[in-house]
C-alpha cells in the first residue's frame, strides 16, 4: 500500500506537469502572452504536487505505527499493561507485533491475539486512508496549479524560488547529519553515565563489559574504564604509523623528485588500489596470512606472539595507510614553489640535497597534516581490528601482545542483542562519543594545518 502511495505521487505529479504544460501551450495558441515558457508552468505544477504530498507520505510512515501502538496500548491493552515495567511493556508489544506479522510462537493469550488483529486492522485502514488522502490532496493541488496558468503568473520565478529552497534543504542535510550524530551519541552516553559514574569511565583502568544481562547469569562484575581500550587503540595506531609513514614518505619522495613521468603514471594508480581495497578484505588478509606468518616467525626466533597480536592488525592497517600518506606528501611536495627547487639546484645542490634540505622542510606542515589525518583514520578504522585484534582489554604497550580497540569494543558490544537500557549497550555509545571527539579534534587540527600552509604559498 505504501508503495502504491509513492507510485501515485509520481503519477499525479507528472500528470500535473503534463496538464499545466498543455494548458500553457493552448493559452499561448490563443494569442495570450505568458511571462514564462510553458515548461515552467508544467514544472510549477510538478513541484506543487510532488513536494507536499511526498512530505505527507514520509511523515505518515514515520508516525503511523507508533501512533497505532500508542492507541492500542491505551485502549485494548490498558488493563494488561497496568502493572508492568517499561521493559515488559516493550516485550508484550514486540510479541503482538510478531503475531501481527504471522510469526506466532507457542500459544499466545487471547487478548494478545485480539490486540494483534486490531493492530493489523488499524494498519490496513491507515494505509488505505493514506492512499485516499494522497489522491485527494494531489488532485486538489493539481487543480490549484492549473488555475495559476494565467497571463500575469510568473511561473519561472516561482519555480526558481522553489528550486533554491530545495537546494538549501539538500545542503542542510549535512548539518542535520552532524546534529543527528551528536544528538544520538549525547543522549545515549548521558544515559550510560546515569548508570555508570563518568569518573569510572574516564579514569578507570579496567574494561570488563561482560556484565550479566539476566539476574541469574554468572558473569563478571563489570568495569567500564576506557583507558586500556584507548591505549590498545594507540598501540595499534603506532604500529600502523611505524609501517606507513616511512614507506609512504619514501615512495612520495621518489615519485615526486626522481621518478620519470612513465613510472609516476604507472605507480600512482597502483598505490591508489591499496587505498581502494575495502577494509574487510584487509581484515581477512590479516587473519589469513599475516597473523600466521608473524606467529610462525615468532616461533622460529623463540618469541611468544599472541594469537591476536597487535602487530598483525597494525601492520595491515599500515599497508592500507601507505597511499594515504604518500599522496598527502606528494601534494605537499608539489605545492612547494618551483623557485625554491630551482634556487637550490642552481646553487649546486644535488636533487637529493634539494629534497632533504629545501623541499622536505618546506613541506613539513602539509606532511604533518596528512599524517594526523592518517592517525584519525587509524583510530576510527574498524573492520581490520574487529577481525584481527583481540577482544580482551589489557593495559599493555607491547605490540606482540593482544590488545583491543575502541572500535572493536563498539562492534562487539552492539552485535547481537541491543536493548537500550543496558549499560553494556550504552557503553558502546560512550565509546563512540569518545571516538567521535578524538577524531574530530585531530581532523580539525589537521585541516587547519594543511589549510594554513597552503595559504602561505598560494
Amino acid at each position: 500500500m505504501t508503495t502504491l502511495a509513492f507510485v501515485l505521487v509520481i503519477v499525479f505529479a507528472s500528470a500535473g506537469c503534463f496538464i499545466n504544460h498543455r494548458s500553457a501551450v493552448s493559452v499561448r495558441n490563443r494569442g495570450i502572452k505568458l511571462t514564462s515558457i510553458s515548461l515552467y508552468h508544467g514544472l510549477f505544477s510538478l513541484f506543487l504536487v510532488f513536494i507536499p504530498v511526498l512530505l505527507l507520505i514520509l511523515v505518515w510512515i514515520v508516525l503511523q505505527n507508533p501512533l497505532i501502538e500508542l492507541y492500542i496500548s491505551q485502549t485494548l491493552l490498558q488493563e494488561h499493561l497496568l502493572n508492568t515495567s517499561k521493559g515488559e511493556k516493550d516485550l508484550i508489544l514486540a510479541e503482538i507485533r510478531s503475531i501481527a506479522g504471522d510469526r506466532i510462537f507457542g500459544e499466545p493469550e487471547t487478548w494478545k491475539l485480539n490486540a494483534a488483529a486490531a493492530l493489523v486492522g488499524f494498519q490496513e485502514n491507515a494505509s488505505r486512508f493514506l492512499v485516499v488522502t494522497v489522491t485527494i490532496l494531489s488532485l486538489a493541488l493539481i487543480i490549484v496549479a492549473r488555475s495559476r496558468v494565467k497571463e500575469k503568473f510568473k511561473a519561472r520565478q516561482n519555480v526558481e524560488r522553489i528550486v533554491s529552497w530545495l537546494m538549501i534543504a539538500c545542503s542542510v542535510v549535512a548539518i542535520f547529519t552532524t546534529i543527528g550524530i551528536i544528538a544520538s551519541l549525547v543522549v545515549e552516553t548521558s544515559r550510560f553515565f546515569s548508570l555508570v559514574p563518568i569518573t569510572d569511565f574516564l579514569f578507570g583502568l579496567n574494561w570488563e563489559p561482560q556484565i550479566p544481562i539476566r539476574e541469574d547469569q554468572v558473569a563478571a562484575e563489570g568495569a567500564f574504564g576506557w583507558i586500556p581500550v584507548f591505549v590498545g587503540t594507540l598501540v595499534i595506531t603506532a604500529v600502523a604509523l611505524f609501517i606507513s609513514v616511512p614507506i609512504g614518505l619514501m615512495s612520495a619522495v621518489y615519485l615526486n623528485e626522481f621518478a620519470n613521468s612513465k613510472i609516476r603514471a604507472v605507480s600512482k594508480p597502483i598505490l591508489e588500489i591499496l587505498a581502494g581495497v575495502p577494509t574487510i578484505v584487509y581484515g581477512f588478509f590479516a587473519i589469513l596470512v599475516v597473523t600466521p606468518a608473524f606467529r610462525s616467525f615468532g616461533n622460529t626466533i623463540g618469541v611468544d606472539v599472541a594469537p591476536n597480536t597487535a602487530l598483525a592488525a597494525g601492520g595491515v592497517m599500515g599497508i592500507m595507510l601507505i597511499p594515504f600518506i604518500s599522496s598527502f606528501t606528494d601534494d605537499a611536495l608539489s605545492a612547494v614553489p618551483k623557485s625554491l627547487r630551482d634556487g637550490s639546484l642552481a646553487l649546486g645542490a644535488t636533487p637529493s640535497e634539494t629534497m632533504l634540505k629545501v623541499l622536505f622542510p618546506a613541506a613539513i606542515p602539509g606532511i604533518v597534516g596528512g599524517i594526523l589525518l592518517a592517525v584519525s583514520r587509524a583510530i576510527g578504522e574498524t573492520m581490520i581490528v574487529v577481525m584481527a585484534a583481540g577482544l580482551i582489554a589489557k593495559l599493555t604497550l607491547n605490540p606482540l601482545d593482544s590488545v583491543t580497540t575502541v572500535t572493536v569494543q563498539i562492534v562487539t558490544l552492539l552485535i547481537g542483542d541491543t536493548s537500550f537500557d543496558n549499560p553494556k549497550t550504552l557503553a558502546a555509545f560512550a565509546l563512540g562519543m569518545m571516538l567521535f571527539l578524538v577524531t574530530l579534534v585531530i581532523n580539525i587540527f589537521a585541516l587547519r594545518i594543511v589549510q594554513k600552509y597552503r595559504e602561505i604559498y598560494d
Partner: protein
Amino acid sequence: MNIDNINTIELVKRTLPRRNRNQVILKGLGVTAIIFAFMMLVILIVSLVSSGYKAITQTHIEFTVFVDPNKINLEKLPRGNFRGVLQDSLLAYYEGGLANREKQQLVKILSNGAQFELRDKVVANPQIIGEKITLIVPTSDPYDQLSKDLIDRDTPEEFRRLNNDEIQWFDSLAEKGMISKPFNWGLILNADSRFPELAGLKGALIGSFWALLVCFIISFPLGIGAAIYLEEFATKNRFSNLIEVNINNLAAVPSVVFGLLALAVFIGWFGLPRSAPLVGGMALALMTMPTIIIATRAALKAVPPSIREAALGVGASQQQVVFGHVLPLAMPGILTGTIIGLAQALGETAPLLLIGMNAFITSAPGTPLDSSTALPTQIFIWSDSPERGFVSRASAAILVLLGFLLTMNALAVYLRNKFERTW
C-alpha cells in the same frame, strides 16, 4: 682566480662522490618503499586468489537413486524418508558388509541438502516414485576439501577430518567416475546456509543491491543539490561556511560512528526494522554524500566561466545557466565521483554490522525492508565460521566483491576518459 675558489672546487670534487652516493641511497630507499607497497598488493591478491579459487568449483557426486515407494508415499508428500532412500541407493555401491554405524558414517559424504533436492524433485514430478533416477548432488564439506587436496592424506588419521575408511570410500567412488567438480553456481545462486557446500551469495548480493539502490536514491540528488547550491548560488556567509565545515568533517568521521547514528536514530527512534537494507542504505547514503558533494563541486568548478557568461549574455537566468549548461557539462565528472562513492559504499562493513546486517538469513530479501545480509557482512560472517569450507567461500566472496569494485572503477575511468573535456 683566487685561492678560496680553488678550495671550493676541490671541496666539491672531494665531497661529490659522497653526495652522489647519498643520492643513490635516497633513490634506493624510495624504490624499495614502492616495491614494498607493490609486493604487499601482490601478496594480498595472490593469497586471496589462491585461497578463493578452490571455491570456484564444488565437488558433486552422481549416483543412481531408486525412489523406494516403501519409504516415500505419494499421499504423504512432501514428507517421506528421503534420507533413507539416498542412504540405500548410495550404499548399493559399497562392496562388502558394513555395520550400521559405518553406514551412517559413509552416508555423510552427501551434503545435507541432498535430501531436500530429492524431495523437490519428487514433489515436482511424483511419477518417479518407484523408478530409478540419476541424481547429481554436492558432497559435504570434508569430502569437498579432500577432493581439492585441502586435506592432507599423509597426516595421521587422528588429526584428519576424514578417517582412512572414508578416504578409501571416496576414492572408490572417484574410480567409478561418480565424482565431478563442475563450476560452483551455488556460490551465486544459493542463499546462505549452515553448510559450507550449500552456502551462496544470493541473499548478500540482493541485499547489497537494495542497500546501494537506497544509498544512490538518497545521496545522488541530495549531494548534487547541496553541491550546486554551495558552488553556484551560496553567498559566502556564516551559514554557507557552517555547511562547508560540516561536510568536510563528515567526510572524515569514522564509518562506525555512522553505524551508531543509524542504530540510535533510524532503528531506536524511528522504529525502522533491524537488519534491513533500507536502513543500511540510509546509513551508507549519509557517508557517501560528502564524497558526491566534493566530486560534484570539483566538476562544476572545472566548467569554464565563459560558458556561464555566454548563457547569461543571451538572457538566461542564473538557474537556467546552471541547469541548462553548466550541469550537463559537469555530468561526466559528477557520475565518475558518484560511482567511486558507491564503490566505497559497497565495500563498507562497519555500519552494516551495527544495524544487524550480519544476521543468519537463509533466503534472499524480497523488499528493502526484509532482513538481509550484504556482500561485505557475508564475508565477515563466513570468515568468522569455524568450518574450513567457509574460509575458501569467504575468499571467493571477496573476489566477487573486488570484481564488482573493479568493474565500477573501470566504468568510472571509462566515463572520465570518454566524456572528459579540456577547455
